[in-house]
Every structure is written in C-alpha cells, then in structure tokens.
C-alpha cells in the first residue's frame, strides 16, 4: 500500500476508535461532535462530485440537507417513523429538487450558476420559514428517530455513530467509483475543456445534470442523518451561509480529491468548535481565516498528503 493509502486507512481506524476512546475518557461529547462532522462530510463529499470533478460551483447545496431533513421530519410529524421509508423519501425528494434546480441552473455559466444556486437555496429557506405547520422559523422537534425495525437503534449514540461512519465511507467510495467510471470521465473532461469535449461528441449538459442530481440525492441522505442527529429540524439547515460552509469544507479539504471533503469537514467544524469555545465572537476570527485560506491555501489539506492533491 502506498503511503497515502496507509495514512487514510489510519484515519479510518482512528475514526472507528473514537467511541471506545471517548467512553474510556468519560468524554461522550466527542462521539456527538465527530458524528456531526461526519454527517457534514457526507454533504461535502456530495458537493465534491459536482464541484471538484464537475466544475460546477453550487452555492446551494444546503438546500438538499434541508429537503432530506424535512422529509424525515414531515413524515415523522404524520406518524411515519419507518427509517427505510423516511430515508428513501429523503433521497428521492432531494434528487427531484436537484433535478428541477439543476435543469434550470446547469444551462447557465459561471457566475450566473453561483448566484442562481444561491438564490434557490434561500428560496427553500423562505419556504421553510413560511410553512407554519412544520414550525416555520422555529422549526420542529424530531421526537421519534427513524426506526429500523430492530436492526439498529439510532437513540444509541455509539450505534448511530458507526452507522454514520459506514455511510460516510460508502458515500466517499460511491463518489470515487463514479468519477473514475465512463460517466465520471466525461464529467471531468467537460470541466477540463468544454470545447474539446464538444468537438469529440459530448454535450456536457446531460452529464452535468445527472451528476447534479446524484449529488443532491447523497446530500439528501446527509440531511436525513442530520435530522436524526440534532433531533431538531429548522429552515436554518437550508440557509445559504450553510451552503457556504459546505463549499468551504470541500475547498479547505482539497477539491477533486477523495479524502478532501472529509478532511475539510473536520478542519472547518473542529476549528469552529475550538473558536466557539474560546470566544462568543468566533466568526470575527473565522472570517479572516477563511479569506486567508482562499488566498494562500488553495490546494487544501489533501495537497499535504503524500501523492499530493492530484486526483487519479
């Protein structure tokens, strides 16, 4: 195994070791914290597909977190607690929303695309705020977590933790397989040189749209996970500032690399956690930090690994 693979394997082992270690140290808080980071890592991995490999700068990915979360929340509200059903709906609903948003936005270029995806996510936020049944601005509690007929109890923090870890690894693997498949090669080619792609016979639009939908679907799953993690669902999940955070995770971690999104999620959320513990006004430090990272640290954390930031 290459040095890179060894390091990544070690990271996975470390993640798996968190619950027992935390229990030993009596610091159960870390199970919660790392689990939350991993949920966002799933979201970041989904964005990496279209951003890192597809070149689509979506500033609206939080929308799918919201759709997934609300799918779980709304079904639970009406007494449907079956996890299989809830999560399936979360994924499908997110895919559909991504299809609609994507069909309109993917046609556009560059800065328009950024603005439009941003506008749509905020639109969903306002929609969430205005629907009073589901709590409006305050959101709603998830009193009963998704039920999986005895297979796993999400109320058990450790079991839930391992589920999220497994899903994170699955998401990363899925994205990895996709970007190296025939489909993925076309997507990446379109990002690399659109004129050349058209000249050999590829129309980028269908590929980008499909990638957009897949990305939305995976992010919807992250939304379902988030709903269960926080046991509370609010429109704030869909705010554009959240989209910005996910975007930063992908960039900080190294876009267009497999471990990038996870690394970025960890980096950003841990830094936020540390700063928040230090001062109530942590954003005034985070803001400039982010600016500096954009100016001077563009390759991201994955670029520090042996093998560099190069995607295969």
């Amino acid at each position, binding site marked *: 195994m290459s040095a890179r693979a060894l390091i990544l394997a070690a990271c996975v082992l470390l993640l798996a070791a968190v619950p027992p270690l935390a229990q030993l140290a009596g610091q159960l808080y870390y199970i919660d914290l790392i689990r939350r980071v991993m949920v966002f890592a799933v979201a970041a991995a989904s964005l990496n597909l279209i951003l890192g490999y597809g070149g689509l700068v979506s500033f609206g990915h939080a929308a799918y977190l919201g759709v997934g979360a609300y799918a779980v929340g709304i079904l639970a509200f009406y007494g449907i607690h079956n996890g299989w059903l809830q999560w399936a709906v979360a994924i499908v609903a997110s895919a559909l929303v991504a299809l609609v948003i994507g069909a309109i936005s993917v046609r556009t270029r560059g800065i328009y695309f950024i603005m439009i995806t941003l506008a749509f996510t905020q639109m969903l936020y*306002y929609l969430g705020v205005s629907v009073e*049944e589901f709590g409006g601005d305050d959101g709603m509690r998830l009193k009963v977590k998704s039920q999986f007929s005895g297979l796993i109890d999400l109320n058990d923090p450790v079991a839930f933790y391992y589920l999220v870890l497994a899903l994170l690894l699955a998401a990363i693997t899925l994205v990895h397989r996709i970007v190296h498949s025939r489909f993925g090669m076309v997507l990446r080619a379109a990002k690399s040189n659109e004129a050349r792609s058209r000249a050999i016979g590829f129309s980028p639009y269908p590929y980008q749209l499909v990638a957009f939908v897949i990305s939305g679907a995976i992010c919807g799953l992250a939304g379902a996970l988030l709903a269960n993690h926080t046991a509370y669902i609010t429109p704030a999940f869909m705010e*554009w500032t959240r989209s910005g955070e996910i975007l930063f995770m992908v960039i900080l971690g190294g876009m267009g690399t497999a471990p990038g999104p996870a690394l970025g999620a960890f980096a950003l959320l841990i830094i936020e956690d540390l700063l928040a513990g230090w001062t109530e006004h942590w954003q005034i430090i985070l*803001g400039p930090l982010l*600016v500096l990272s*954009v100016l001077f640290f563009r390759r991201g954390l994955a670029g520090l690994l042996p093998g560099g930031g190069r995607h295969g």
Partner: protein
Amino acid sequence: MNLILVFEQLLNGVQLGVTLFLMAAGLTLVFGIMNLVNLAHGSLYMVGAYLAVTAIDWTGSYLLGTLLGLLGTLVVGMLVEVIALRTLYERDHLDQVLATFGLILFFNELVAMVWGRTALFSSLPSYLQGHVEIIPGSIYPLYRALVIVIGLAVAVALWYVVTRTRLGMLIRAGASNRTMVAALGINIRLLYTVVFGFGALLAGFAGMLAGPIYNVQPGMGELILIQVLVVIVIGGIGSIRGALVGALIVGIVDTLGRAFLKPLLGAFISPPAAESAGPALASILIYLLMAVVLALRPEGLFPAKSGG
C-alpha cells in the same frame, strides 16, 4: 381590496425597487468592470446603515450624520478593496465568492461586537416624517416617497455618467478591454479603487436610506443581497439598465405578492389553505420569476455585450 391600497403597495414596490437598484448597480458595475463577484456588498449596505445611525446620533443632525456615514462607508469600502480584494481580481469566481463570504462573517460579527445584536432604532428628523398626498384619498409616507425620488434621480445620474462622460467611457472601455485601457496610460488600479469605492458608496447610501424602513441589525446585508442577486440574474449581469428594470420588477412583484397573494388565492381556494399557501407562495414568488426568466432568457433581460 381597493385601488388606493393597490396604488400604495405599488409605490412600496417601487421604493423597494430603487433600494434594490442602488445595490444592484454597485454590484453589477464592480462585476462588469473588474470581473469581481463581491458577496460582501451586503456588508457595505449594513455598514452604511450602522454608520449613518451612529453619526446621526452623534452629531444630532440628520444631514451631517448622513454625510459622515456615507463618507465612512466610502472609506471602509476602499480599505476593503486595498487590503482584501486586490489579489482577487486575478482569481476565479469561486475564490472570489469564498473570500467575500469570509468577509461577510467578519463584518457581521464586527458589527455585533460594536453595536450588539439587537436591532438599532433609526429615527427620522421631524421634517421627514409625515405624509404626502400623491393621489387624492391616498396618503403616503413622505420618507418613502423621497426614497423613490432620490433613487430614480441616482439612476438617471448614473446613466448620464456612464453613457455621457469621459469617466463613464473609461469605465465601459475598462470593462471590455482592461489591457488596452492600461496601455493608454490610465491607472487601472486607481480606476478599480474608485469604481469599487463608488459601488460601496451606493450600497452604503442604500443602507442609510433603508435604515428607517427596515431593521438595522447584523445580517441585514445578506437578506437584501439575495434579492439583489435575483435582480442581477433577471436584469443581466454588467448592465445598469438591466439592474434598474430587474430591480423594479423584483421590488414590485415581491411587494404586491406579499400584500395581495393571500387574498387573491382566497378567492379561488379555501381560506385556510390560502392562509398557509399565500405567504409561502409570496415568499418564493421572485425566485419563481427568476426561474421563468432564466428558462426563456438564460442571460437575463439586458445582458451587457462586453463580457467581464
């Protein structure tokens, strides 16, 4: 629902429209000329509002306070340009979006630290309170009417400067061919700083005007920024005319929608359904409008010919 009410809401829509225009004009100018996406434009709006309120309180004079506030915003804008944005001109849009996003976090927190998180009260001098009778039977707040007039005046002035003056010519030339303008001996850096400062001034002005009408609080910039982005997408990037048309359309549609959609719907569907569907639909109306415009004209209504 009487005609007078519709008329008043229409005026409100125009008032929102000119506020959006002031913001959109600055943003689209900066994008068109410097190819810079500045999400922190909303922060300048916020800074403008806060500085104005503070200066008015401090000097006791509305006019003097306003002037100081605007000056302050101009200075802040130029400082931001010199310190943080210069390096971004060469970078791609993603980098610009991310960096200016970081600036938003910074400014929101800065404002919260200095002024606190609760909304500030922005008072109007007595001579600006009161009402005017625009059409018989309808009294409209004087201040809002003034905002409309001022906003439209700025639009005309802007049009004049951009199309009829040497500075405007430089600006348009710079937009289509930077290297050429630089080769002609024009100091591009200075031009950029001036343009950015001007955009900041417009944003600060919008913020100052909006203070008494909307809430002055951290995060106020982002609320309006999203609407401004919708305006720019609808109107077309890089175009002042598009910014005006788009802003008026968005302002009017949004205001009328919020005011009349629920009662309108109530005429067709059951009242309880209209009760929830109305506000929901009203809140997303401008986005639906944007989607429709994009489906028909992906470049917006009046895209500037010269690419950024």
